[in-house]
């Protein structure tokens, strides 16, 4: 169970979905969702044809900005660090204890969590999975990292044996990715987002999910 995007029956639900639907309503457009693996989203948007825009807890960062345009941020999050053995790895020692050869850290492929592990835990082995769910299911890894909002929810709903030991404040902001040459959609979404923020609708959706 991820609080951002989640498949319930055959419908996509979650915070991101509600935000996108609200934007669609503002623009008088119906939103059709298409499910892609996270690491395929940015290439798909940048290539065009498959989708007009993408929403899935995508952090706005300079590397991605080279490939796609981002609408203004709609949520600020950090990274959550979860471990299977909370006795051995604690908030105080995990920065050194997990940065060792032979330690496996599960990451979702193509995410800022993966980048964070690359940068700060270079000695550990990264194990990349398609979804954050898979990261948590693969308990053979010692630790897993994902969006903070997702980690909290996953532990609460499905993986009660895991413990979140730290929240890392990265200040990352999630944005809607749009193809570079589609300036009109970018402006339209930004306008809709601003109106939704001013009306307090974004706050409402946030309190519904987090």
């Amino acid at each position, binding site marked *: 169970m991820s609080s951002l995007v989640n498949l319930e029956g055959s419908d996509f639900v979650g915070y991101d979905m509600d935000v996108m639907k609200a934007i669609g309503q503002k623009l008088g457009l119906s939103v059709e969702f298409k499910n892609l693996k996270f*690491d395929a989203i*940015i290439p798909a948007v940048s*290539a065009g044809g498959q989708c007009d825009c993408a929403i899935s807890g995508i952090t706005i960062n300079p590397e991605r900005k080279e490939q796609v345009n981002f609408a203004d941020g709609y949520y600020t999050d950090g990274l959550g660090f979860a471990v299977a053995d909370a006795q051995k790895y604690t908030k105080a020692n995990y920065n050194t204890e997990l940065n060792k050869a032979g330690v496996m850290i599960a990451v979702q*492929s193509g995410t800022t969590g993966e980048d964070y592990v690359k*940068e700060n835990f270079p000695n550990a082995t990264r*194990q990349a999975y*398609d979804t954050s769910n898979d990261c948590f299911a*693969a308990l053979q890894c010692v630790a897993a990292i994902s969006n903070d909002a997702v980690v909290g929810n996953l532990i609460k709903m499905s993986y009660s044996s895991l413990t979140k030991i730290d*929240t890392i*404040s990265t200040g990352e902001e999630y944005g809607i990715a749009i193809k570079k040459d589609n300036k009109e959609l970018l402006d339209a979404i930004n306008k809709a987002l601003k109106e939704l923020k001013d009306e307090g609708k974004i706050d409402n959706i946030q309190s519904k999910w987090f």
Partner: protein
Amino acid sequence: MGYASAIKSALFKLILVLLAIALASGIFGSYASCFVAEALSTQRFSARPNSDNGNDVLGGEKTRINWEFQANESAPITGFTLVFPEGTTFNEEDASVTLMDDSGTTPGENDHLKRVPIQTVYSIDNLDFSAKFLNEVSADAYLEIRVQNVIFPQNGGELMFKASVNLANGDIVEVRDLLQINVKSFSFADKLAKDLSEQDWVKAWNSNDFLRLFFNPPVLVSSFPVVMQGFFTALALVLCAYPCAIPLGLLLALMRMSKLRLIRAIGSIYVNIIRGTPFFLQLYVAFFGLPLAGVQIPSFILGFIMLFLNSGAYLCEIFRAGIQSIPDGQTEASRSLGMSSFQTMFFIIIPQTIRRVIPTMTNEFILLYKDTSLLAAVGVMEVVMYAKTIVASTGSITPYIVAAFFYLIITIPLASLVGVLERKLDVSKAANNQVNVLDENDISVNVKDESDIDGSIAPSIALGQTQVTLQEDKNLQNDGAKNG
């Protein structure tokens, strides 16, 4: 007591005092320097890895510096200067200074979760990157400083930074912490990729969306050595799993043809379950199910086991069809010559079978090799997995094309080998039919020594009027085709 002695004792006292002062200042001095070192403690100093894969920070390629420190100064901090290593280029664009304050969610502890952007004016003088804060920052602030667009020298090395902090009282405090980044030098492929991306024809080529996404020359070059690592993993997996699967397949085939119902049932159930469910699903059960049950197996080993178990079931059917395609007369003849059923199977039937099933077995090898790609979903670092990580970081589909190359390099030669083998088999069959067809009812007789026809020395027993059913050969082909 005269003046002389008074002066003497005064001098003596003076020397003592001076000595004491010198001693005290020495101790104090060293203490003071300790204190300075503790006045600012760096929590994190790192650069974003910018190689297509792995944790390396490369020279000559854009990266970002991240510096977090806990200040413990005597006065509020008003700015800082970071001195970059020689040969580094950088600018102030998108640079940021953030105060990481207590969000108040965990009582009694500063969690640094509240991010307060600090308004800052930057100035750059050669290698000095200076910042002046416009907002007030307390003496014990926890700050995060990010400098984007940093390009380290191409040669790399253990690069040292220097830094100092400006305080409101005018003091400049040197930072004694070790600020070091290990930068890897450019690899040959990276250099080539960079050179390519600056060429005019590459720019023209990449202006076409399709060509840029699927056949981007710099990405093609830089991803090649990375995806090749996955190629070796995939090859190692299949080269370990396939030879092990052959005896398993043979064992299962014999089990399925056993006279004992129980053994036959075990073999059938195993083969039907493995062949009746997608390999992908089997992988998910093994990779996510076993750890939940407390069984921890390294992913390469588990990947090998799964390929081995899967391929065993398919090879079983190939062998069974092969063995059953050998005319009954062969068995009857060898038994009538006094061979035991064991001897018949291993010295008469199986040697003939192997020659017949080699093309289908080669097909199975090709399918198994392609199936290693499914392991990407469960985190085994093979061809597709490496390609995926580069696709995610470059936004180009090109690495998948590189991955395709690493499959074709194995599958095309093997496929043509299968073609050659099949033709050879056809020749022997055609020869069989030509020489030995006795009447129109598709009856043929195996020749005495098949080495006459195709050079192989498979033993065979001459026997009159045995039916060679071509249909079973067709079954053979069908069994080779699976979920691929």
